[in-house]
């Protein structure tokens, strides 16, 4: 009985030792992998920092202004280019708009007021 118990315990101890060894081995491997991952993360983060700095550099307002004037022909907005909703030309249903604006007695005095958004949208269609 004692001999059996001793054997069982010895076996258990051996298994535990083996298990411990393999766990330790795996942990060491994981730790190495972790260090590598950390290094990789670090490198990526540094890369991001560099790219952010470069992005900020490329976004210098003077550079953007130069590129905009070269490729887009944009100029700063003028105050007159802003209008409120109440200043938009009145919206009319397409059916109403089909008759020539000048023939209508109630039509606006200025034909330029009546042309516009809808008419041009229709011609495009």
């Amino acid at each position: 009985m004692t001999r059996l118990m001793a054997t069982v315990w010895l076996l258990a101890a051996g298994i535990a030792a083996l298990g411990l060894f393999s766990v330790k081995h795996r942990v060491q491997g994981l730790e190495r992998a972790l260090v590598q991952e950390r290094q990789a993360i670090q490198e990526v983060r540094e890369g991001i920092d560099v790219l952010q700095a470069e992005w900020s550099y490329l976004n210098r307002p003077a550079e953007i202004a130069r590129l905009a004037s070269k490729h887009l022909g944009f100029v700063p907005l003028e105050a007159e280019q802003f209008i409120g909703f109440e200043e938009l030309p009145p919206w009319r249903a397409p059916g109403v708009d089909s008759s020539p604006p000048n023939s209508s007695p109630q039509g606006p005095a200025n034909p330029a007021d009546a042309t516009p958004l809808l008419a041009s949208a229709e011609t495009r269609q």
Partner: protein
Amino acid sequence: MTRQTANSTPHLNPCGLDSLSERQALVVLEGSAKQALETGRTRLLVAGLVFTLAFFVIAVRLVDVSLITGTAEARLAQGPSGPATAGARADILDRNGTILATTLPTASLYANPREVRDPRGAARQLARVLTGVSEAELTAKLDSERAFVWLQRHLTPRQHDAINRLGIPGLDFKRETKRIYPQGALAAHVVGFTDIDNRGLAGIERSFDEVLLGTERPLQLSLDLRVQHILTEELLAAMDEFRAIGAAGLVLDVRSGEVLASVSLPTFDPAQPGRAVTEARFNRTSLGIYEMGSVFKIFTTAMALDEGVVTLADGYDVSKPIRVARYVIRDFKPKNRWLSIPEIFIYSSNIGTVHMAMEAGTPSQRAYLERLGLTHPSGVELPEVGDPLLPSPWREINTMTISYGHGMAVSPLQLASAVATVVNDGERIPATLIKPLPGERPLGERVFSTKTSKAMRWLMRLGVQHGTGRKADAAGFLVGGKTGTADKVTGRRYASDANISSFVGAFPMDAPRYVIFAMVDEPKGHDGTFGYATGGWVAAPAVRRTVERMAPLVGLEPRSGQVAEGLDQGLIPASAKGFTLAAH
């Protein structure tokens, strides 16, 4: 060992049970059977001890791992969100998150010439990648007998990559960090710069040195880079047009005291501050103090109205110059008649303003200027802050000259902040360069009554509609303000040919959001301005263009002609209804 012990003392029980042997009835074995049992017991005991020890060690280790070392593991696990570069310095951002200053790891290239096999070939390849070094220099360095030689410090990432690709033996990199200012000279005076060890030497870099070193969180300034750029461009254009030696400008948020733009020209490259001349590194907006001239009439008029010594309906005869001791105070463009208070303000009459200041008195003037923050250095977060220059003693003649902005010098930042107080319902909010946290509202301090502020807003708007500041009128934005042209002090007297021309204003005047200040140092008039180099001709147009360009960016809607007219009518205080300007 055990067996021997058992043999030598056969009557002793190794488990210590012998002490009980007399009281308990124990089976006592003799001979080989006893010996076998004794051996078994001993072995059991030893094994037990060994296991107890082993489990104890494991327990101790468990405690160590889970409680003591465990905290370090947790910290390491968060590592990736920690610093990217060891000993890094936090970034500085503008209010929209654009990077103004950042710390980047850089590689510095060095060589061990003893290990370089083909110095000529290596030098030829390197010369194509490195900048500012000739092939001959590189050959000489690589051909030497030393074990260490710097080839280039702080490589760009592209150079780093290219040299790695070359794969020349004997070359290696040393990792270093370097402070980078991607926006260059744009906000150099505010941001400042650092020394080679990344310690702040000027600007925010210096005043927040400890904060930047101690944290990873970027420091967000109140500056808006776009506004900063616009103001810089317009001031540069004004400097060019009038062949000026310098310029300064500010945009302040009236309600929060935030500085949106702070421009000092000429400027410098913060990457190479050592190469800039001293004047370029000088921050004119916070460190420079100037006699501001007529823009001070804003404060004199506001004080007189607030004290109640005059009302908008009052006025003075300005036809005669004021003589005090050996001084004569005249008007730049004399009107030679009685002028009402609004007229005195918009035509910028020195004589009328002096009358107002004298009625209010010296103590009153001192008290108001002090409460406006003009008599003590600005509390802005910069190390470069100028002490205002005050008269000592403060005599009557000083009161007179200060009323129209001479005999007292303040920094543009103090001035702009004081004007913000006037238009902000009379509530003073200290200027700041740091973006406040959401919901954080600075504590204001009342200087003028709401009524005074309302009257002043109307007067400043009139000054732009009909007065000296007409060229600042950006259509639809209801700009109001005051021009100033001050003679510069050279040595102990005023120079007749050197001016400081300025304009300070706010917009939109029905509910002021921004204060804008522009100042040009020693402008020279040209034919297009009929030889004039006054604030109205030099600084006001720059302000108009800046307002027109920045307002849409900061979300201000321009008012169309009719709406703007209606708002202008609404600005007129009840006490001045029906006011008309006399023909001029």
